[in-house]
């Protein structure tokens, strides 16, 4: 009898195991990103509650979230409306059930794993207390529940007392050893990283009034500002302004702006920055925002079009070039994000189309940078004539800009293409001369010309040239 005849084949068990959620899914996300997922839930709570005032510049004003961590616990509290009992199936279930309608306009939750993944990433014990109008209940996840492969129901009890405002408090204890170390031994470095991440990824929402505190310090937003020359176009045709593109496609509104954040760097500055890193942070690159939350910050890779299709690879000379793309949809599943919500789904059809526009806009500014190379001083005057504007301020300015409709290109939309000043002569009038000479000889000539052996060598070279030029004339 063959082996196949002996074995009774029965349907196999393909049900999920808890360790998949607890130990596997949690590896796909950085701790900082997991905490941002929890902040996303706070903001989704505000949007669900429909209590924002969209007619003001600060629609999130009055809403806050407070994060506290130490070596033995993590907590996040908010006044963002709480979790309605009607949503418990989505909020506490591992993954989003198919057929479930979108959560609400402007939210970003799609997969139904953010909060659970963040909890399991950090520890084995969690107490969630939430209040939404008449609903007020506590959910407790204990280590025993996590270890029990058969038990999938989480106990819920009515809250013993009501909170002052609708909101949620989530406390994680029994921390994983690595997490405990990051909150404790490495706590200062972790707070610095987390605060920077919140300041950059939540810049738009904080700018709109949302308040985030980390270990009692209020986070200030760090928005990217693009140079916008507000002088009327007639006064000067060529002007430094961002390239802007906007469209509505696939149920998603897209607004893109790319331009300069600062004057282009001089050759000396480029050389110095390459030799020794002078700044710990740079605004250069692309920031992608989905429903007000940055999912990618200052990216300078092929993911955002650098080094592709005629756009040069990122290099320090492009330190001034920065862009922002905003995707906005009432259905979060249409946004081109990954499950971690801190990355772009590079294969998304929508994103690939918009990336064409990103490259198109970016090349205007890389081309300008190349054209004015060696003439940074002249270019500086043009750029400094403009004002750094935030993304929201640029949106307000668009009302006065002449947009062209692009119907035949993909994606169709409206765009404003600035005419940047270009050098009158393609070749600069000035030429850079550089050469090296023996240090003792340089000192000798410096002493001869300036009676100062330590004179800057470039001044020595320049003086030599000027003397000979006088003779030559």
């Amino acid at each position, binding site marked *: 009898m063959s082996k196949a005849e002996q074995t009774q084949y029965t349907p196999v068990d393909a049900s999920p195991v808890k360790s998949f959620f607890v130990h596997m899914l949690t590896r796909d996300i950085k701790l900082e990103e997991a905490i941002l997922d929890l902040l996303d839930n706070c903001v989704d709570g505000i949007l669900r509650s429909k209590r924002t005032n969209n007619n003001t510049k600060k629609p999130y004003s009055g809403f806050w979230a407070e994060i506290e961590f130490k070596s033995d616990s993590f907590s996040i509290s908010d006044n963002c409306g709480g979790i309605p009992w009607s949503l418990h199936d989505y909020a506490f279930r591992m993954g989003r059930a198919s057929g479930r309608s979108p959560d609400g306009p402007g939210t970003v939750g799609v997969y139904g794993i953010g909060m659970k993944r963040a909890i399991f990433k950090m520890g084995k014990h969690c107490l969630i207390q939430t209040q939404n109008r008449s609903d007020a209940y506590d959910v407790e996840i204990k280590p025993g529940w996590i270890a029990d492969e058969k038990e999938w129901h989480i106990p819920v009890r009515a809250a013993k007392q009501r909170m002052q405002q609708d909101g949620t408090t989530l406390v994680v204890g029994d921390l994983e050893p*690595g997490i405990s*170390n*990051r909150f*404790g*031994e*490495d706590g*200062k*470095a*972790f*707070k*610095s990283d987390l*605060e*920077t991440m919140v*300041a950059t990824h939540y810049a738009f929402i904080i700018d709109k009034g949302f308040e985030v505190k980390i270990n009692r*310090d*209020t*986070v*200030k937003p*760090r928005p990217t500002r693009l140079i916008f020359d507000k002088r009327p176009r007639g006064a000067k045709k060529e002007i430094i302004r961002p390239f802007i593109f906007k469209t509505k496609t696939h149920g998603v509104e897209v607004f893109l702006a790319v331009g300069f954040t600062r004057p282009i760097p001089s050759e000396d500055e480029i050389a110095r920055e390459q030799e*020794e*890193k*002078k*700044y*710990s*942070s740079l605004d250069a690159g692309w920031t992608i925002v989905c429903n007000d939350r940055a999912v990618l910050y200052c990216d300078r890779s092929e993911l955002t079009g650098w080094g592709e299709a005629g756009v040069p690879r990122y290099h320090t000379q492009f330190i001034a070039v920065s862009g922002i793309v905003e995707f906005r949809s009432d259905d979060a599943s249409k946004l081109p994000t990954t499950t971690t919500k801190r990355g772009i789904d590079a294969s998304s059809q929508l994103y690939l189309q918009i990336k064409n526009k990103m490259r198109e806009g970016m090349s205007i500014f890389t081309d300008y940078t190349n054209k004015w190379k060696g003439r940074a001083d002249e270019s500086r005057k043009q750029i400094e004539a403009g004002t750094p504007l935030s993304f929201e301020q640029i949106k307000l300015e668009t009302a006065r800009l002449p947009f062209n409709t692009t119907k035949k290109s993909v994606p169709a939309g409206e765009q404003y293409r600035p005419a940047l000043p270009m050098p009158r002569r393609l070749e600069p009038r000035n030429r850079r001369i550089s050469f090296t000479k023996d*240090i003792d000889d340089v000192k000798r000539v410096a002493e001869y010309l300036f009676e100062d052996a330590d004179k800057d060598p470039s001044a020595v070279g320049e003086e030599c040239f000027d003397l000979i030029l006088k003779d030559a004339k």
Partner: protein
Amino acid sequence: MPPAYHLRLNKAVDRLSFIEAIRFLGQLASLSGYTYYCLGGPYLEDCRLLYEFYPEIKMVSVERREEVYKRQIFHLPCGIVDLRHGEFKSFIAQYDPKDRGSIFWLDYTDLEFGNFEAFMALLAKVAANSMIKITLRAEPRDYLKRPDLFREKFQALMPNPSANPPATSDAFADLVQQMTQIASQKALPSELPHMFQPVQSFYYSDSTNMFSLTGVVCPRTAQDRVERAFKDLQFANLDWRRPKNIDLPILTTKERLHIQRLLPCNTGAGRILREALGYLTEDDRQTTEMKLQQYADFHRHFPYFMKATP
């Protein structure tokens, strides 16, 4: 005009406190196995002192500027200092500890992100029980009108990246210390077996505010041992407390000899020494007592500068 480098009182005390800390390092491993690496400056003052106290320690000085390097050759205090001419950054790239203990003094005169990068690179390279001292400019007035520049430069190391740098010298020195702590946590995160244990930190001004921190790279499992070894070091800072100020009074030799016999005092040294002198050495009583307390604290390290006619 700031006083000449080798005549800076407070810096001299910081330097001698470092020499003292090295003595305590000897409890972790024999000092004869260590090599001292420094940015010695034109007079190699630290090498001279080190040779005086610990002749068994080998020494290497790295200098970028050729004329200073030549001056170092002229001032060589002994035959065991290996003078190198080159960039310190390049030296760190080539540095191979070969499992031997190192003592580094990154004696910078400025505050740049690159200084922290060099410190972080060293933390990741040195052998266990190595000592690193870093000195940085900590001058609040540099950024008083340019807080954005400070954030651009140092955001990645700031404990509160949203905040402006403080305007007072003590708070600014504390900020630089916290940035150094964050740099150490990033270079040696808790997943790694080694850690950076601080042992001493000061701030002082000899016309420019400076911050100076000394610590030991050790296995995490040996942290208690390092803490025990340094617990009796004067002004030990084993838990990242705020740095201690060094702000010594200008006293004549006659005044010093007069109050010397009353030292050490356990409590109220400022008052006792003021009463012994019988007059105020500063503008008011409080400042006089504060400065005399400083003298009591650091009198063992207070140098005598004598004028001599050659």
